[in-house]
């Protein structure tokens, strides 16, 4: 690895030349995503029209040529105007871009918190790296430089990190945090293994996959309707309708089963591709390096002190295998960026989890005393389910002439939902310990959200006026909220008072 001279970043730099092509491809992909399907439909209609017979491909090719040329020119201008440098007087990293409206981003060096290098498929093709700069205030990247050659990317990363450290006085960083030593500190790299990722994704994220599929089908349907109207042809719609009417119950069943299987398959593939070969490495006591991805290689560095909440999700099957879904939540002040600020380890083994706990908490997670909600919560849940099933049964009988046997099905559904309610109630608990708060929930899938008391920002304790004995609590951290209801109000009150005085007197920063 070539170590670049710092001086080169003090005057404006451009990206790697190949960046023009990358920007070209990126812009092209963007247009394709926006207009691709309409374009294909338009071409299709043109090919079938009379105009095609007279003019042939001539105009299509001309149009395509002009379009590509325009995109290429824009890409070149974008590349030419994209410049970055370190301004030593202003103590800032500066990035300029834009063709017509120029944009200048200034990041003060001391605010730089984290620098990531990554490669997506196209960046791999062109052999360039994307450099992201994150600042302390927000979890998303402030600056992205999409095409840097490897030596430049590494040099810029090291330079920026060194400057950031140098300017961040007052922050008591020990020598272990100097990024230059990352390479030297070659702690063990641990791999999670494709088998574990496969199990975890298969068992734990069915709901997600189902939602994605349903969403996709909905979008497809609405888009289809739009296009059918746009191109004012009755024929497509009529063809679909006749196809629909031709369906008999057997074919329908096959289609439904296939549709339900799709989420499983898509989800598993998605997960295995996204988290392929995921590994982590404790770089130093302050930083955890994480690498994953099949097509898009991700390299992230997770700042240990930025952790707000640790989630451990498992079910009976995963527990038997000794693996779980582990999610790290970072502090995040920006709304709607939650996805970006979480780091997921699908199928982490118990031994690996123990290592992470050591890194983040300096000890294993302790359970302490447990508090559970009143049984009234379960009773209410069961009554509500009973009412819902009864209402549904009545509705089906009254309007769809459900046969009497249908009530057996209703009873089965009720039994299942009651079983889930019981399981949910059994898992519903808070574990209180001096150093940890654990919120446990879920029915078949058990979720444990773990926070440390000094990460608490504020709390809310609720009670309904007509049942003052029962209370709810919401504990807010910088990454979200932990909530529980139907607990003993007095217990919650005393607990919250204790927590508040602990948080007030702690000398530990939440970030």
């Amino acid at each position, binding site marked *: 690895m070539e170590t670049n001279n710092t001086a080169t970043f003090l005057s404006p730099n451009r990206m790697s030349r190949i960046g023009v092509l990358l920007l070209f491809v990126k812009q092209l992909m963007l247009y394709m995503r926006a207009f691709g399907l309409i374009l294909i439909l338009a071409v299709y209609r043109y090919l079938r029209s009379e105009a095609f017979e007279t003019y042939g491909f001539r105009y299509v090719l001309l149009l395509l040529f002009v379009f590509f040329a325009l995109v290429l020119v824009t890409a070149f201008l974008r590349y030419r105007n994209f410049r970055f440098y370190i301004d030593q007087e202003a103590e800032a990293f500066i990035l300029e871009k834009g063709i017509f409206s120029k944009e200048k981003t200034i990041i003060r060096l001391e*605010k730089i918190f984290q620098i990531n290098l990554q490669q997506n498929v196209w960046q791999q093709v062109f052999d360039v790296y994307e450099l992201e700069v994150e600042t302390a*205030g927000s979890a998303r990247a*402030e600056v992205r430089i999409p095409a840097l050659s490897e030596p430049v990317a590494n040099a810029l990363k090291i330079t920026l990190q060194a400057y950031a450290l140098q300017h961040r006085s007052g922050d008591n960083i020990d020598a272990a945090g100097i990024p230059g030593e990352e390479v030297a500190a070659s702690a063990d790299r641990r791999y999670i293994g494709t088998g574990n990722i496969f199990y975890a994704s298969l068992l734990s994220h069915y709901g997600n996959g189902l939602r994605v599929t349903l969403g996709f089908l909905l979008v497809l349907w609405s888009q289809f309707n739009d296009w059918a109207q746009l191109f004012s042809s009755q024929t497509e719609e009529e063809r679909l309708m006749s196809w629909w009417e031709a369906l008999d119950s057997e074919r329908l069943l096959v289609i439904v089963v296939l549709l339900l299987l799709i989420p499983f398959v898509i989800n598993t593939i998605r997960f295995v591709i996204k988290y392929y070969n995921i590994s982590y490495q404790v770089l130093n006591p302050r930083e955890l390096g994480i690498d994953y991805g099949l097509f898009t290689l991700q390299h992230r560095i997770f700042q240990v002190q930025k952790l707000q909440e640790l989630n451990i999700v498992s079910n009976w099957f995963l527990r038997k295998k000794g693996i779980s879904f582990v999610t790290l939540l970072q502090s995040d002040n*920006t709304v709607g960026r939650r996805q970006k600020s979480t780091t997921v380890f699908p199928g982490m083994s118990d031994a690996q989890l123990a290592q992470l706990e050591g890194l983040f908490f300096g000890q294993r997670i302790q359970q302490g005393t447990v508090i559970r909600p009143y049984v009234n919560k379960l009773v209410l849940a069961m009554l509500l389910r009973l009412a819902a099933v009864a209402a549904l049964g009545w509705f089906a009988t009254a309007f769809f002439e459900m046969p009497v046997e249908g009530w057996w099905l209703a009873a089965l559904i009720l039994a299942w939902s009651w079983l889930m309610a019981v399981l949910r109630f059994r898992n519903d608990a808070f574990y209180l310990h001096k150093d940890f708060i654990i919120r446990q929930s879920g029915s078949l899938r058990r979720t444990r959200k773990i926070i440390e008391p000094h990460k608490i920002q504020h709390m*809310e304790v*609720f009670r*309904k006026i007509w049942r003052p004995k029962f209370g709810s609590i919401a504990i807010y951290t910088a990454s979200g909220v932990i909530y529980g209801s139907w607990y003993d109000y007095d217990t919650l009150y005393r607990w919250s008072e204790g927590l508040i005085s602990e948080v007030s007197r702690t000398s530990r920063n939440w970030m």
Partner: protein
Amino acid sequence: MENVQVALSTMLQAREVSFEPISPRYFTIIAIRWFIFLLAVLGGWTLIAGLNDIPLATGLLIGGGLLVAAGIWLAVMKLSFKYRGIAVREYDVVFRTGFINITETLVPYNRVQHVKLIRGVFEKMFGLSALYIYTAAGGNHNLSIAGLKAADAEKIKSYIMDKVRIGEEVAGPAGDIQAAEASAEDQDNEHNREEDSHGNQ
């Protein structure tokens, strides 16, 4: 160490917090707003009913229903005043709001990012203020209590700010308030940048 309550309130009990109630004048503001809103709704309904040839009986019935619902809402608001309040203690500030769902919000001083007083037109007229406290909790979660006497609100605000500053001195230069100010600045910058980038697109 016990989290003892300070000054504003006289009654001190081991576990019970006694809340400073908010000003009854705030109810007048609520009532004025309620009245304006009610007039708008009823006026709108009259217009709709008139334009659509809705029978007088139906019109009156629905109008009456709206009036009763609004009346109940106002009554609930009036009752809720019994539960609204603020308690300023040694280590934290506690709000109590709500009537059906009584919510107590506890904010420790060393997690406060900034404090803001907001006064609307009516608040100015009646000498009241709403107090907003911001922590770094995810999302745009703000903690607020409306209807404090302006002088009290000012006192509480400066008390909290003092507490935050003392906390910072104890914690050293990397204390929370600096970080808080910095991140508030950051957020502002970010907004500007976001607007900029939107402008460019």
